[in-house]
């Protein structure tokens, strides 16, 4: 496990493809289904474009593509999760929103070396939520500039 964090952890969970992922709820600013964006030619392929979020320019990222799970399709259930990462707002396109899961950092297990082909470095770890495993995303690693 990368982090030595402890204490309670609330995660907002969502599906990227068939994988259930979670983000620490504290970095999430909002979720919306505004899908109107301007593409930016020449940008990295996982960047979908930019969006006007109440007067601010927000970069939208295809989380599926970024994690190597394949391109996300925009459907009725698609949502954009706006997160704060390093003083910047970034939108993540996900396939479907799931529940909020409450757990503790102590219950987070290290990331298995290969979870469904996702690059391991993007995760804090995994934990159990009911029957399913939730992969906890390290948002700064995902949105870091490689």
């Amino acid at each position, binding site marked *: 496990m990368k982090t030595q964090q402890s204490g309670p952890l609330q995660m907002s969970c969502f599906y990227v493809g068939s994988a259930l992922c979670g983000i620490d709820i504290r970095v999430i600013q909002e979720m919306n289904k505004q899908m109107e964006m301007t593409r*930016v*030619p020449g940008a990295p392929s996982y*960047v979908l474009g*930019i969006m006007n979020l109440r007067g601010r*320019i927000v*970069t939208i*990222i295809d989380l599926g593509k970024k994690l190597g799970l394949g391109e996300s399709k925009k459907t009725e259930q698609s949502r954009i999760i706006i997160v704060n990462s390093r003083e*910047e707002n970034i939108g993540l396109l996900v396939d479907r929103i799931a529940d909020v899961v409450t757990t503790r950092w102590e219950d987070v297990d290290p990331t298995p070396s290969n979870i469904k082909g996702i690059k391991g470095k993007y995760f804090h770890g995994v934990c159990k939520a009911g029957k399913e495993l939730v992969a906890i995303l390290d948002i700064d690693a995902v949105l870091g500039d490689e």
Partner: protein
Amino acid sequence: MDIQNPQGRSVFAVSRFDLEQATKGGKNLYLLEFDLIHDIEAKKKTALDVLKNLETTGAILDVKLDLEAVGDLEGGDFSNRIPLYVLFASIIEADIMPALLDLNQSAIHAVDLASAPAASAPEFAQELLETTPPTPEEDRTDDLVKELFSADTLAAAVESPAPQAGPAPAASSPAPTPPRAPEAPKPSAPSKPAPAAAASEPEPASADAAPKPGGKTFTQSETLRVHVSLLEDLMNLAGELVLSRNQLMQAISSNVLHQIQVAGQRIDLVTSELQETIMLTRMQTIGTIFNKFPRVVRDLARSLGKQIDLQLEGNEVELDKTIIEGLGDPLTHLVRNSADHGIETPEERTAKGKSPTGTILLKAYHEAGQVIVEIIDDGRGLNTAKIVEKAVAKGLITAEQARGMSEKEKANLIFLPGLSTAEKVTDVSGRGVGMDVVKSNLDQLGGQVDIETQPDKGTTIRIKLPLTLAIIPSLLVSVGEERFAVPQVNVDELLRVPAQSIGERIELVGDAEVLILRGELIPLVYLSSVLNLGDEFSSAARMVGHVLRGEPAPEKPVDINLVVVSAGQFRYGLVVDELHDSVEIVVKPLGRHFKECQGYAGATIMGDGHVALILDVAGLGRLADLSITAGLEQKSVALAKEEAAKGVREDRISLFTFRNTPTEHCAVPLDLVARVELIQAKDIEEVSGRRVIKYRGGSLPVFSLDQAANVGMLELSGELVVIVFSINGHEIGLLASPPVDAMELDVAIDAFTLRQPGISGSAIIGEHTTLIVDIYELVQTLQPDWFVERTALLPDAGGDGEVGVPNLLLVEDSEFFRNQVRRFLETDGYTVETAEDGLVAWNMLQADPDRYDLVVTDIEMPNMDGFQLAEQIRSDARFTGLPIVALTSLASEEDQARGKAVGIDAYEIKLDKDRLLQSIYDCLQRYAAA
């Protein structure tokens, strides 16, 4: 405070705060005096009923049964009343209270808060202090003032030494601001006796003046000084904005379109004013950076053993804060350079005959909406030869390119990356920050830098800066559905190349497509391809490809819209699908994921809420692989092409086309047209057999073509065009029918088929046979007196010593031009003989060497061209006193130089009548005097 009854007895004690609360919203405060016996018992009511009744119309603050007023048995003075006092607050006015309450007027006392004795009893005052906020609030404001004041003085104290902190390394620490804000409030804290409550107070209160001090999210907090009057303006505007918003809301709810429009306009007005004013708060004087230079220069001068006088001008010029901050480093570098390399040592200067003290002038001023900063020194100037040598040695340019460069271009090579002329790296300059870094720093600010130098006279570096960065005027363009903004500073011109003239305007040079714009070759960059927008967006590219390379054509022909842009050394034509409006946009930065993208300067939000990208013209140029020196290369190609084109070029003339009758196309040389006016046929008056129109406060004689030439009758009805000519100082108007047009074209003029008085010939223009009108001949038939008068006046035009009318020899191969030029030379009083080419002219000169006073010659002619003719004339001693004026449609610098070399006295453009006449006159005068 206490409330007294009319007898002066204190009845209630209520805190002023409660009273103020109760009387908010214009309520009146009453002291009501009910008598339990007469007012209540006698009227068969209960006290409770009375109070309940009161509650429906106002608020009861306090109720008291005054038993003391009843008196006691011992005292004996038994009053027969039991007063019930009610402190009552209500919006009801005093005059209707008696009726409402069924109470005697004398029993209702209005309580005036303002005149009421405030806290007459000391214990009340004490209570007030403890429970009510107003007084402590005063305290707090007091503290706040103290706090702000001390913060201010401290800030000032920190600020003043900071710029003097000595020569900071050029590459680091953008401004001395950072330490100011976090430090300032802290030292002021101990001086403040206020409790913790007050200490937390200043944060929100001072937030507009300075961002929160020391919050841990603010790694670098900055403060900004703003003039109080500006803040007041802002307050007023904010107030107005709120008012306008209220109006708008009201208008919307009442749904009256007119009112909505009015309110909308008002908001528009207020918003733009607000925007301007807010931008003003960002403006800082350039003095803040200028003022550190006296010290910098003094230190430098001392360590270098030089005498330097630094002069500052335009300290008060204001620029946006971000620009001021970004300008510090490059400016420091440039000033150091001037001091180190520019200004010589006193000995050297004395040896050159200059004053031992060198001068560096730092100057800022406004020009055309931009701020210009100049660094002028009177030092040794740049050694351009050395710069070129270095640039060639480093392979930045080729020797060939260098030869084609002007001094100025050579000097500007210093901004190329990887070029440093300093032979040795001294302590002062050459700290790894080259001029290219200066340039790229300035580029980031949207600035342009230019250098001019003269050996031993000095160097002038001129920096052009925009006033502000946050809001920039931009041109909107689109490719397919996508819109982009191009900063207006980069836009040189807009151009539309119609589909049918692509072949003429766009050419292939090597593999590159270039636009021919007034003799210059401009590389084309397709926005769709440089951004890889995909095939569906590239109809323009396909269209050009089709015309130039024979590729398959797009579905339907498209016009090519392009923006000629320039940034730094790049200049190219950006091909887009559509050109839209010019708008003011607010620049917003792009996120960190786009830092690899070169083509964008940011993004902006359009009026409709969509996001548009702002293009970075220099970045796009790099993306399109236009190398920096490509521009230079292009220029030499352009010159070569022009050279090649010379042999085949026809005479280009500018024609003004119009119609006589709707089917009869006519044209006159554009240079002869003074003005064009649109009139109504009914405006034409007929006075003593002549037609005139009222024109600029006088009468303008007008005529139609059919009056003088054998052409169709012009019907005098509806809208007409008057083409005004100025002939020998007289103005005359030619009536014609619209549409009119002006065009420059190569035409072959047929001077025979349709020749008649007033018509010098015909040409095919755009599929129509067009009559070329000879305006001189026309006017001569209509107003012969103008010409008689003129020739009589001008026989001495040739100069003082000459006898008779100067005799000119006009050499010109095109009959059209020959006739045109001859005519206006003749109307100006000269006698003119003509020759078709140089050989004929030379033979004429040989036959009678003294016959001619001046030769006017075309350059491009068969058999013997103008250069050869001039050479022949100059090589013959008999013609030393014969001036030669060349007439040409090409007046490139190279041609002029060649002309000068072979002895041509003056170069004039064909049909630029006034200049030609002036030039002939000057030449004659000069030769007569010699």
